[in-house]
């Protein structure tokens, strides 16, 4: 058996057009040896879930800057559960107020990374928490 690759979907839901952060994190994940699937801007939660399933990713990393994290992130978690694909690690990143983070974690987002976080932090988090 060859070394198992960690596969990550970097997802950009919502209506904001800012994907520089998503691209930087995708690149950092690549350099960490992950296989990164990037699907571009303005994906619906349904599309993100369908892609996560077809690509059998270990991690769904959701980047969101539009302020709609409270709605869209839990929706991804719930749809994955509905489709029987709830063994994935789901993390979020973007401009997300500290006050909102507990509710997101409650909803099933494993961790939230806010601006200024070094890229090594989510990488280490993924390595430590990904399904075996």
């Amino acid at each position: 058996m060859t070394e198992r690759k960690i596969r990550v979907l970097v997802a950009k839901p919502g209506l904001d057009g800012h994907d520089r952060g998503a691209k930087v994190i995708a690149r950092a994940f690549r350099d960490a040896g992950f296989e990164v699937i990037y699907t571009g801007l303005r994906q619906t939660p349904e599309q993100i879930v369908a892609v996560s399933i077809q690509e059998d990713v270990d991690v769904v990393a959701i980047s969101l800057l539009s302020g709609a994290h409270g709605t869209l992130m839990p929706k991804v978690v719930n749809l994955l559960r509905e489709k029987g694909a709830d063994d994935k690690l789901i993390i979020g990143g973007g401009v997300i107020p500290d006050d909102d983070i507990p509710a997101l974690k409650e909803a099933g987002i494993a961790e939230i990374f806010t601006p200024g976080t070094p890229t090594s932090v989510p990488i280490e988090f993924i390595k430590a928490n990904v399904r075996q």
Partner: protein
Amino acid sequence: MDLVQLVKEGNRVAIARLITRAENEDPEAIVALRQLYSETGKAFLIGITGPPGSGKSTLTDKVVKELRKRGKTVGVIAVDPSSPFTGGAILGDRIRMSDLALDDGVFIRSMSTRGSLGGLSKATYNTIQILDAAGFEYILIETVGVGQSEVDIIKTADTTVVVSVPGLGDDIQAIKAGIMEIGDVFVVNKADREGAERVVIELAQMLELNANMGDWFPPILKTVAVRNEGIVDVVDKIIEHQAYLTSSGELCIRRKERISNELINNILNKVSAKITDKLSEENFWDSQLDEIIENKRNPYDVIDRIINGILQ
């Protein structure tokens, strides 16, 4: 329920999981593939290849949509390169296929080459088997952006579509050996750009010089894939080529070659792994290497001796 049964039923979570196992060379994947084998051989395999940025993903997206309009189900394998340094990869082909994600008649899987150099990944063949067994009627295989010599696709696909674009070089490029020889259908994409007509003429001149062509003369089609122009013709020609392959008996010949290649590759991989194991067991390496460096032995005798020892 077991994975094999779920794959046969087209369960998407199961299909995806089995592909992952095949990619990781998990022995369980081989167990499942053995059981699925009797269900395979029904899908028609279309390869899409061409240089980086020529529009392969966009063309794939549009061809899939046209096949869907004609009521066909489609699996897509999109291969992108892996980093030679970290083994990581950015798989971005899906950016051009966003609105196919929710179509139940389509299953798209992105793969990294994981170090393979021929334009595909080692797991491509097994992934085709899985999508075939799951019932997809057409399977499109999009190679990495290729240069001149990454021609593994012709050993894999039934029909190979080679995508060119204007502005890549003079007509000597068209007569070089390599990917320009392998097309069953040629597409000149971005045909709204200057120089498209010249590319068509150069391709036509190249094809006319091919002596051993058989009864199929590869068509050259112009497309502007982003605007969906010319796509119906591309799909028509692919279907025409499919009919030609079937009626001429060429399909059988191609598939036999493919299976023969696949068997040889797998046997060589296994044998080479065994030999590597064996050589690392015996620690004769160091002394032999020293003797070669000191010119006491020559490498050719050493090779013969080791091989004769293994083959006994």
